[in-house]
């Protein structure tokens, strides 16, 4: 019998970390597979998470592929399913199917500098790439991570950033002035221009709110990054995750299958429908 | 001609009624029935609403969709509405709902309206008892019930 692509595996929430508070709070969920039917994934892939009775949501896998025991998901409270996640407790069960989508071509980037530019919850999709790159530190040149949030309390993975500093340059920013803030004050694209990483032999990976991505890409281009050197992920409403339900397409591509990772060169050739 | 198996079914079938009761009169009336220790059928699930005029037809359709065997709306007598005219508006609106439900062939006994004041505990008990008896004869409501 073929696999039932719509039947989720059962996952169990074993850890919940409140990343940010507020109307659109973000929580990170650590999920294990009590039935031993976990799956491997690649950097950039997503999974369809279920809250039975509420529905499914496509969420990017925020943990490193090198971590096999559990998967991590950072979820912003937005609608029906994500609100159910935010109401969940440790020990609760969820449904999970995947992994879906393509991946960041990390192996193609060997020997190059990596510049990560994240904003808000957009850090989650690129976090596994950062983790993997750091774990394979000798494969890459300089690693720089730009990350911005509205305020210092909105910074995700705060503790992990401290550890990250050992192997990468970390450039944090907050949108508005804050007393005692040691990092940059201003929007992420501005911080990027301020630090002006070199495009030579570098790859830039960005994810965040659409408006941030737009200006980050403009600024990267101004810094001399070619379209092929810029990678981002896109999202659209998804239901099936397997290229059938017909709604997440950008032109001929179903993002759930062909995406979410695109180089700017590829994305430019697609119609703007995301 | 009586059908033996059907008779048994009628005897064991306990109709479920969703009763939307206005907070000022009928809900108080049902409380009175309770505190007066009047014996009457326990088949009605009461839902207290501010006024019979506040009943959306959606409540009624939804109750039938979720499997109610009967729906009762009860409010203050004409002239006694706490909001002056809510029950008059309800009367008109629910008349139309009743007509519509009959028109599509839902058994007409399944939707009922009553005026029960806070002092009419006995009447409330009678209304519910009568409703339950009529529903027992009809059997379970399957026409609008979700087939899930």
């Amino acid at each position, binding site marked *: 019998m073929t696999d039932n692509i719509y039947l989720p595996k059962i996952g169990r929430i074993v850890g919940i970390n409140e990343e940010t508070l507020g*109307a*659109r709070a973000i929580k990170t969920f650590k999920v294990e597979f009590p039935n031993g039917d976990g799956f491997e994934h690649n950097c950039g892939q997503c999974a369809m998470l279920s809250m039975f009775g*509420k529905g499914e949501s496509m969420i990017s896998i925020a943990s490193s592929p090198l971590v096999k025991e559990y998967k991590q998901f950072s979820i912003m*409270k*937005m*609608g*029906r399913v*994500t*609100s*159910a996640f*935010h109401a969940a407790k440790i020990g609760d069960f969820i449904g999970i199917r995947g992994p879906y989508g393509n991946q960041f071509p990390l192996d193609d980037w060997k020997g190059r500098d990596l510049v990560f530019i994240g904003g808000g919850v957009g850090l989650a999709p690129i976090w596994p790439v950062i983790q993997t790159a750091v774990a394979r530190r000798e494969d890459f040149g300089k690693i720089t991570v730009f990350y911005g949030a509205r305020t210092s309390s909105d910074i995700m993975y705060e503790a992990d950033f401290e550890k990250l500093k050992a192997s990468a340059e970390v450039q944090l920013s907050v949108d508005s002035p804050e007393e005692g803030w040691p990092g940059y004050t201003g929007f992420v694209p501005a911080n990027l221009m301020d630090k002006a990483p070199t495009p030579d032999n570098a790859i830039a990976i960005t994810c965040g709110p659409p408006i941030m991505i737009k200006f980050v890409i403009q600024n990267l281009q101004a810094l001399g990054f070619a379209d092929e050197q810029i990678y981002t992920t896109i999202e659209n409403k998804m239901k099936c995750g397997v290229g059938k339900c017909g709604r997440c397409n950008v032109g001929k591509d179903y993002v759930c299958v062909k995406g979410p990772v695109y180089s700017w060169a590829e994305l430019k050739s697609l119609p703007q429908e995301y | 001609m009586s059908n033996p198996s059907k008779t048994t079914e009628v005897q064991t079938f306990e109709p479920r009624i969703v009763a939307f009761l206005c907070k000022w009169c009928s809900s108080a009336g049902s409380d009175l029935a309770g505190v007066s220790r009047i014996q009457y059928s326990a088949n009605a699930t009461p839902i207290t609403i501010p006024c019979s005029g506040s009943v959306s*037809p*959606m409540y009624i*359709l*939804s109750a039938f*969709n979720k499997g109610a065997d009967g729906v009762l709306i009860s409010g203050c007598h*004409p002239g006694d509405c706490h909001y002056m*005219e809510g029950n*008059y*508006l309800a*009367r*008109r*609106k629910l*008349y*139309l*709902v*009743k*007509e*519509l*439900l*009959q*028109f*599509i*062939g*839902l*058994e*007409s006994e399944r939707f*009922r*309206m*009553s*005026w029960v004041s806070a002092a009419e505990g006995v009447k409330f008990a009678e*209304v519910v008892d*009568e409703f339950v008896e009529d529903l027992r004869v009809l059997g379970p409501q399957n*026409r*609008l*019930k*979700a*087939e899930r």
Partner: protein
Amino acid sequence: MVNVEEIRGYAAGLLEKGEVKSVLGFRRGSASAFAEPCTLIEASDAASLVWDPTCLNNLALYLVKDRKQQAVSKTPDTRPVGIVAKGCDSRAIGVLLQENYFKREDVVVIGVSCEGTGVVDPRKLSAKLKGRTASRVTFDGADGINVSVYGDGTETVIPAREVLADRCLECRAATPTLNDVVFGETVEARGYNEPFHAAKEAEKVSEDERWANWEHHFDRCLRCFACRAVCPMCYCPECVVDSTTFVVTLGTSAEEKANRIRWCERSANTSESAVYHLTRAIHLAGRCIDCGECERVCPVNIPLRLLNTKLEKEAFEMFEYQAGHDIEQASLLSSFRDEDPNSFIR
């Protein structure tokens, strides 16, 4: 007889003088023998206007659509819109005015009297032709509808009575009462059928038969929502019964989205479709002006108009209320009389 040249001339005049920004009317389309809606911008376009018993649509829908577009436009064009309206269409405009959807000066009603003819019901025509397509449909001036059948080219004359829409057979006001100009003679309805005839017929059968009929119809519903989409009265930006129209803005909170009640599921099964259609019928009580559009557009021919006319019949008989007849009157469900029926209440 309505002279279509007069309608064209009037529409062209409105556009030429700049009294309206556009004129909603009918033209011949490529899709079928029936006329299609058009929006004229230039006076020179007016030559394409047609008027005949294939002008089925209630164009008041597009007044609503325009209103919605202007509401979100950064540069709204508030000039009036001209609209070709049959008797029933004008009543739709009447209800929209009564509900303050727009103002009288926002619309120029180019009334056209059906002169007691009415429009053809594609469903009845299909039944006559057993599913075959008509390539041309014209009124022969007497009591017949000329139909050319596609394929073999046969021409048949069908008595109007047999293919006119039920609403036209039952029509009480074939001439637009609300108008800025009327073309065609004011003709009393021909009285083919008494008002509410079809609904009264449907009432006559037993309860079990009525349910058997409606169960059959609800079960066939595809939930394409064409009945709602085409209805000028279904202007709510968000329909209470389904999620496809849930309005979400950047400011909508997660709680609002998460806690939204699903009154019926998306599944197109009998129970859910019943909730959808019955809710719609009740929401149109005292507002349905019997343009029959819901029934016309239904791809599987559910006789939806019956639900609405049943309620309009009750409104008329029990509450002396007629939708769209008086734009000053209080709406059916926001008013009452002491003598409203009470005997059904225990």
